């Protein structure tokens, strides 16, 4: 019984992390129409940067924010210098993000070497908390809470602010958005940086649970892809639901069929693609 509970909590935690990762991916795909294959690398890079910052004495949360900002800055440079040059050639943009992911991964390997690095759970969130008479690791609860806060914040951004309205317009109909006067290219940069920040931040937050190691990017990217395929691109609700579905599938799958974790992921993706290619909540076909 308690094993299932532990798995459930872990699943919610992973789901929360995945949401932070895939919300950015989904927005970038929805607005810019490119699957950003650098997204896994952003996640990993954020975590690596935080380890260095923490080693220099920064506190965990500062490292998380700053790590995210550094990744966002990199994202901004990439978008303005390279992706913008290829505006309109979406396939070329995808290939560029792929090439960049290799470059970033190799640089990380060079700088931080091949050994996995643990990030310590931030002080104050260690140990267990008692909820309804059961003990849960405090940090995992914290991650879930953070994910919920960000979900709400992103929803508020998209639904309540002008920026959000412009993003939604750009996702729905970029040509029309331009006609109406929305500076779509500037929007692209903002969204790309936001997505990169979320990915980097998520990497740091996930550090105490996943650690950082070479190959982390290759493991997180397909999870984000499956989330977006399941939940639909450009949809925040879809990312949320998809993240938790994937979180549960992956954890339970790993526990029950340790060798088949990826196959378990595969099946719902298969079903969604066959039955409803635009994902559970997406509007346009992928």
């Amino acid at each position, binding site marked *: 019984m308690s094993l299932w509970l532990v798995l459930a909590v872990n699943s919610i935690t992973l789901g929360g992390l995945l949401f932070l990762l895939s919300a950015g991916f989904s927005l970038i795909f929805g607005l810019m129409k490119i699957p950003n294959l650098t997204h896994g690398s952003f996640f990993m890079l954020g975590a690596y940067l935080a380890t260095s910052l923490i080693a220099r004495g920064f506190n965990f949360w500062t490292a998380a924010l700053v790590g995210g900002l550094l990744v966002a800055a990199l994202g901004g440079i990439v978008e303005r210098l390279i992706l913008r040059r290829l505006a309109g050639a979406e396939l070329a943009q995808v*290939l560029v993000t792929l*090439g*960049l992911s*290799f470059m970033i991964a190799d640089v990380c390997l060079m700088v931080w070497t091949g050994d996995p690095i643990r990030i310590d759970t931030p002080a104050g969130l260690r140990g267990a908390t008692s909820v309804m008479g059961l003990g849960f690791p405090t940090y995992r609860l914290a991650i879930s809470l953070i994910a919920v806060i960000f979900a709400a914040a992103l929803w508020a951004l998209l639904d309540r602010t002008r920026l959000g309205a412009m993003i939604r317009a750009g996702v729905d109909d970029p040509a029309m958005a331009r006609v109406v006067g929305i500076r779509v290219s500037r929007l692209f940069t903002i969204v790309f940086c936001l997505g990169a920040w979320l990915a980097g931040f998520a990497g740091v937050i996930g550090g105490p649970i996943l650690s950082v190691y070479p190959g982390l990017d*290759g493991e997180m990217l*397909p999870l984000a892809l499956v989330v977006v395929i399941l939940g639909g691109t450009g949809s925040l609700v879809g990312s949320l639901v998809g993240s938790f579905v994937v979180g549960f599938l992956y954890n339970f799958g790993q526990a029950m069929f340790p060798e*088949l974790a990826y196959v378990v992921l595969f099946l719902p*993706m298969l079903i969604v693609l066959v039955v409803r290619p635009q994902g559970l909540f997406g509007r346009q076909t992928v």
Partner: protein
Amino acid sequence: MKRLALVAALAILAAAPLWVGGTYYVNVASQILIYAIFALGVNVLAGYAGLVSLGHAGLFGIAAYGGAKLMSAGHGQVVVTVGGLAVTLVAAAFFATLSLRATGLGFVMITVALGQIVWGVAYRWISLTNGDNGISIGGRPRPFGLSLASPAGFYWATFVVFLAAVASMAILVASPFGASVRGTRDQARRMNALGYHVWMIRFLAFLFSGFWSGVAGILYLYYNQFVSPQMVALTASAEVLLMVISGGTATLLGPIVGAGLVVVMKNVASAYIERWNFVLGAIFVAIVVFMPDGLVPGTVRLGRWGLAAWRPRAPSAVPAPGEDDGR
């Protein structure tokens, strides 16, 4: 004239073990041929059908793993080859059905996911694939009793398969079906209205592409006598795609040249720098940004550009307003 050049080129390639210096280079030459077959297969989909797949290393690997497993189970070379290819075709049908639910970037995304799942299986399903430790096979096959243990022997066997691959591609390209495939790349909507079954055409192109990727995979298994998850990683799919785009998708020569370039670069780079992945990524970015048509057409264009500076240009029709390139 072109035919003469072609025969000459083939003759030079066939004689490679004789003029290339040393067994190391003969092995590199074999690698180039194997990857050329793989790249040609990927080009059928990317270049002729306009469907860019980043998951084809999955098919390449499924063939190799399939063959390795059959060999470990004690089967003979015929069963290993046929069985490996059969498994690959089934997998290709599966991949195709799923990824053709979308086109364009959705297609790319789904192939990435599929390729990564194959990698995840290769890495994690240890009882099936031996995980990171990979599977070793005893030795190379002996078709018609001939030994392929020597580098030169293996090279010539690979060369024969390479010729078959190139011939099949050349025939396909010139055939009505080949024209159908290219039509769906340029004007899918119109092709539909003209009576072509666009999905089926793409599906069959995918199978054809998967078949040759599988052939390359089995050859690689025999070459390396070892298969590991590295073969199905995203970097592997990216490498073969790099071969296709660096050589250029519009010709048969392009992927072959691209394979040569990337294999040589990889071998040279690994000898001098440990940062192959970085170089791979950088070249990808550079080619996509600066030479999107690939090196073969790019160089041809540069040549013409140079010539055109000396000759007046013929007037060409400016595309009129209202021209569409259809999807």
